[in-house]
């Protein structure tokens, strides 16, 4: 029996109306492994997790983990939160204020022998680097330390399903990376479904094999991290996935043999070769390009396979975290990401003339925002 087998998977369909303006209506399926739940603030991520954990009761639906039915509205089955075997890290942590960090962590281990409890508590506290805080109350540790405590408390119970609501948001990158490594190792050892809510692209790519994107209570997209984040079907999804450039255009010519189409951007009539789609000639299309997928050159490139080469001028250069963002006017406004190293080796300055190099397959055809909902 492979631990990755469907017998441990989560499958569910959940409907829940919270207010006249918001209803969750999703199909969720997650195999063993980390599934990232992604979506803007207020899209229903926490609500989904609460329904799965048995803290909110869906209006209708069915939740199954492995062979075990946790909720089924037709039959009225509704396993209580405490019997679901679900580990939950709350967005607001919900640490027990009167218990020490140690007692918080071992709270869920009451069925085990004292030695096992102590050993497991010690091990998880060490791996989350909170072993020096074990005797303090949550009010006497820092925000990030609290978050690690909450995570340790949920992981240590060996749940059948793990629900993490932005578990690393209050941590610095180094600590985040360490805990993500721990979590990946834990995941390999336990092979249970893990739903991991986050807003950080960093965490999406570092942890998730699969992503599920929510928008206004519905599943906007679902699949492997690569499929969802690299080839988003809709503009909202593309925005969430970090695409910065969106253009309106029209199909000029289809080249089915080459698998490409020639388009013309509405702005300045810029020609752009994009991958083939079902769009017919003359049809309007929306094109998304990630800022990191555009290459910059300070002299006209020659002999390149890339078919889209646009001349432009640097408007501004801004440092943004680990990358540099160049805003380039090439008829239309393009945002381009470079590494600081590349920026320096190109000796880029504002107002410099540059060439943008865009691979055909970096241009994604997406449904525009309006087409949704």
């Amino acid at each position, binding site marked *: 029996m492979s631990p990755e087998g469907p017998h441990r998977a989560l499958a569910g369909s959940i409907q829940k109306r919270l207010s006249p303006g918001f209803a969750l209506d999703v199909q969720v399926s997650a195999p063993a492994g980390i599934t990232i739940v992604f979506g803007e603030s207020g899209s229903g991520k926490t609500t989904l997790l609460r329904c799965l954990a*048995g803290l909110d009761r869906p209006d209708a639906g069915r939740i199954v983990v492995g062979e075990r039915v946790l909720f089924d509205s037709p039959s009225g089955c509704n396993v209580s939160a*405490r019997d679901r075997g679900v580990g939950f890290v709350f967005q607001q942590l919900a640490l027990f204020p009167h218990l020490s960090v140690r007692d918080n962590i071992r709270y*869920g281990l009451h069925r085990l022998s004292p030695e096992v409890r102590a050993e497991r508590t010690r091990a998880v506290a060490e791996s989350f680097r909170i072993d020096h805080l074990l005797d303090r109350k949550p009010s006497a540790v820092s925000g990030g330390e609290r978050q690690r405590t909450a995570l340790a408390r949920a992981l240590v119970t060996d749940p059948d399903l793990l629900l993490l609501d932005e578990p690393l948001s209050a941590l610095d990158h180094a600590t985040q990376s360490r805990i993500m490594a721990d979590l990946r190792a834990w995941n390999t050892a336990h092979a249970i479904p893990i739903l991991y809510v986050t807003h950080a692209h960093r965490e999406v790519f570092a942890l998730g094999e699969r992503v599920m994107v929510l928008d206004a209570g519905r599943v906007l997209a679902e699949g492997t991290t690569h499929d969802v984040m690299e080839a988003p079907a809709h503009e909202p999804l593309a925005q969430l996935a970090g695409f910065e450039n969106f253009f309106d255009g029209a199909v000029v010519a289809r080249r089915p043999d080459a698998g490409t189409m020639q388009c013309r951007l509405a702005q300045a009539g810029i020609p752009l070769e994009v991958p083939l789609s079902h769009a017919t000639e003359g049809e309007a299309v929306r094109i998304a390009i990630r800022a990191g997928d555009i290459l910059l050159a300070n002299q006209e490139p020659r002999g390149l396979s890339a078919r889209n080469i646009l001349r432009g001028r640097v408007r501004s250069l801004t440092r943004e975290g680990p990358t540099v963002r160049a805003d380039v006017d090439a008829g239309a406004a393009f945002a381009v990401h470079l590494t600081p190293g590349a920026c320096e080796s190109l000796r880029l300055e504002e107002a410099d003339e540059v060439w943008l190099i865009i691979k055909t397959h970096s241009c994604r055809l997406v449904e525009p925002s309006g087409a949704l909902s």
Partner: protein
Amino acid sequence: MDYSAILLSVKLAAVVAAILLGVGLPIAYWLTFSRWRWKFLAEAVVALPLVLPPTVLGFYVLVAIGARSPVGRLWTSWTGHGLAFTFEGLVIASVLYSLPFAVQPIAAAFSQVDASLIEASSTLGASERRTFFRIILPLSLEGVIAGAVLAFAHTIGEFGVVLMVGGNLPGATRTVSIAIYDSVQALDYAAANRTALLLLAFSFVVLALVYGLRRKPLVAI
């Protein structure tokens, strides 16, 4: 001075406070967490014993557990002696009368416990029982102490119910409150003052210990 009366009162108050914690905690729990629509009626009922004058309540209790009542007869057939005019009878009457003092502050404290902590406890596999004893109860400690103190002090001081149900039998049901009352009735103010002072001093020490030793107020996160 009537030391046996003081002892009796303390014993009675301690037993009553203990029983009231045992009975009051589940009642308060139910009052706080039940989702029954008509719960508020039950809440009103819990406070009702208070509105009757103690001697009158005592009178009704006496009739209810007295020699002629079914309860009294059942008790007599079990134990060989009546329930009224015994320590046990006093306990029953006092528990009834002080119930609201225990239940109300405890229920109020329960309702202030952050619901997400209760949720967290349940996702950690804790039974309702465990959640109650490990989370709700400790976080409501101040309210529970308030309830226990009110029940204890009120039982020490109560004399109407006790007089009626206990019959003021020296050594058996004559509590210190009745003893002081007797002294005042006999216009023996000096004796009343002495006993009252002793009682006040003793109660003060007990209460100061309770408040001084309790844990610091907790700060929720």
